[in-house]
């Protein structure tokens, strides 16, 4: 049985639709009634300080946790009821490093390809092409352990794209990287949105990763406090810039704004 929510004629199915989602760890609430959707081929920044609920939300979207209250749909497929169909359409870069350090780049990527039913020559071709895209051509046989933090991230991005997802989730993908690596990774992801029509949900607490044309979703202690285009969020919050808007929305004073930068 397909769990696809059909829209009316002319309506576009959202790449991601989060509807009234709440989650708690025991008695400790982590997300409370969060709703937003992101359109295909858009770059949406999920902003929130540490503990805001970003990683919990990612775990729900990727079905590591079950959505007990509310619903999450990826291109119309309910993550709880049709998780296979939903997960085929999403590529995920987790906050923690998830490469197997004992294996080579090729072995890591082949493993992921197999987990999506892609094998043999097709997997090899896709791996070679994606290593070009993430600017690491010919590095198939390097041990994952020998890569720098930025290079590992690029490999993880290539891995997330291997099964040709239409939605890419990146959870604090640039944490711990130098400025050059961060800029390179961000530019690659933005390019994918433009050229390949991939929808991106980019979770971060670094405000300088937000562009004026982006959509933003701001979480604060598990509550959604703002959503929309950057200009709209700035205007409705009464701030002069997205940095100020994020500070106000997150409840941090001027002294705390250092956290918003790398």
């Amino acid at each position: 049985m397909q769990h696809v929510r059909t829209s009316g004629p002319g309506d576009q199915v959202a790449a991601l639709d989060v509807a009234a989602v709440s989650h708690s760890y025991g008695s400790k609430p982590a997300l409370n009634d969060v709703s937003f959707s992101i359109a295909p081929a858009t770059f949406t920044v999920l902003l929130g300080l540490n503990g805001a609920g970003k990683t919990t939300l990612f775990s729900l979207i990727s079905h590591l946790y079950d959505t007990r209250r509310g619903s999450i749909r990826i291109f119309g497929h309910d993550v709880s009821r049709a998780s296979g169909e939903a997960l085929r359409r999403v590529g995920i870069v987790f906050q923690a490093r998830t490469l197997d350090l004992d294996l080579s780049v090729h072995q890591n990527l082949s493993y992921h390809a197999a987990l999506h039913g892609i094998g043999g020559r097709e997997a090899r071709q896709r791996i070679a092409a994606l290593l070009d895209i993430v600017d690491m051509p010919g590095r198939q046989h390097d041990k994952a352990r020998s890569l720098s933090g930025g290079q590992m991230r690029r490999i993880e991005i290539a891995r997330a794209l291997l099964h040709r997802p239409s939605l890419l989730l990146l959870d604090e993908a640039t944490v711990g990287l130098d400025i050059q690596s961060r800029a390179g990774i961000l530019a690659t992801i933005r390019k994918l949105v433009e050229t390949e029509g991939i929808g991106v949900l980019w979770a971060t607490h670094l405000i300088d990763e937000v562009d004026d044309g982006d959509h933003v979703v701001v979480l604060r202690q598990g509550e959604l406090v703002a959503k929309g285009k950057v200009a709209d969020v700035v205007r409705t919050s009464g701030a002069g810039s997205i940095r100020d808007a994020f500070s106000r929305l997150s409840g941090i004073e001027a002294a705390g704004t250092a956290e918003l930068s790398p």
Partner: protein
Amino acid sequence: MSAPAMPDKVAGVIPVKFEKFGLRHYLICLKGVVLRECLRFLHQRERFISSLVRPLIWLFIFAAGFRQVLGVSIIPPYKTYVLYEVYITPGLCGMILLFSGMQSSLSMVYDREMGNMRTLLVSPFPRWFLLVSKMLAGVSVSIAQVYAFLIVAWFWGVKAPPIGYLTVLPALFLSGMMLCALGMLLSSMIKQLENFAGIMNFVIFPGYFASPALYPLWRIQEASPLLHKICLANPFTYAVELIRFAFYGQIEWLSLGVVAGCTVLFLAAAIIAYDPSRGLVTRKQDTGGNG
């Protein structure tokens, strides 16, 4: 970074239609999971050596020392008196499977702590299939270790009937499945890697010693009827007996039933434990992030 040029462009804003998963895709997934486990094992040479040294110490030193003390009468499947080394060899095969099964449990806890487990769990294949694949991967590695041990034992003069090396394979497979399934279930309950020491004390050692791996059950019954009952309640007892009889081309039906039943039970419990809607894992673990 270079300009992206995806190998097969995603069609604009229209979600790509995916081919329905068929048997071929499932087999690719299974092969990928097994291959990764084998590669990891090959990269961890110390793990291979220690898995081999442990039973060999028992065979070379313990069995030689206790040969005169622990006499073994003629009990099925043996038709003649056998050397003590011959008697404990099936138990040592079981020990390898037991340690290996628990090792794969440790590996799952490690994977979960390091985040590698997430890459498995976000695969679009059904969760039960992913866990069974992981279990088959663990069993493949275990069986390779058992045969490596049997080769060394053969050169030491501990030999089973030639056909026994073939007939024991299904018994090793089933016993390995049971112990890997148990390991998987335990891994869902272990919150931190450090807690694994408890598995050694509460599962591996009692499981191994309260079984006919080192001494026949009739001797245990003579020594302590209570201990004998504990041995009979221990699934590892039946794994050892299944292997012992299989070496001589025989099937010990009670053992077969218990091992098969426990495999299904442990596996079902592990699948439930790893199910995000019902499982223990997601309730206990955070996802490693701080957002």
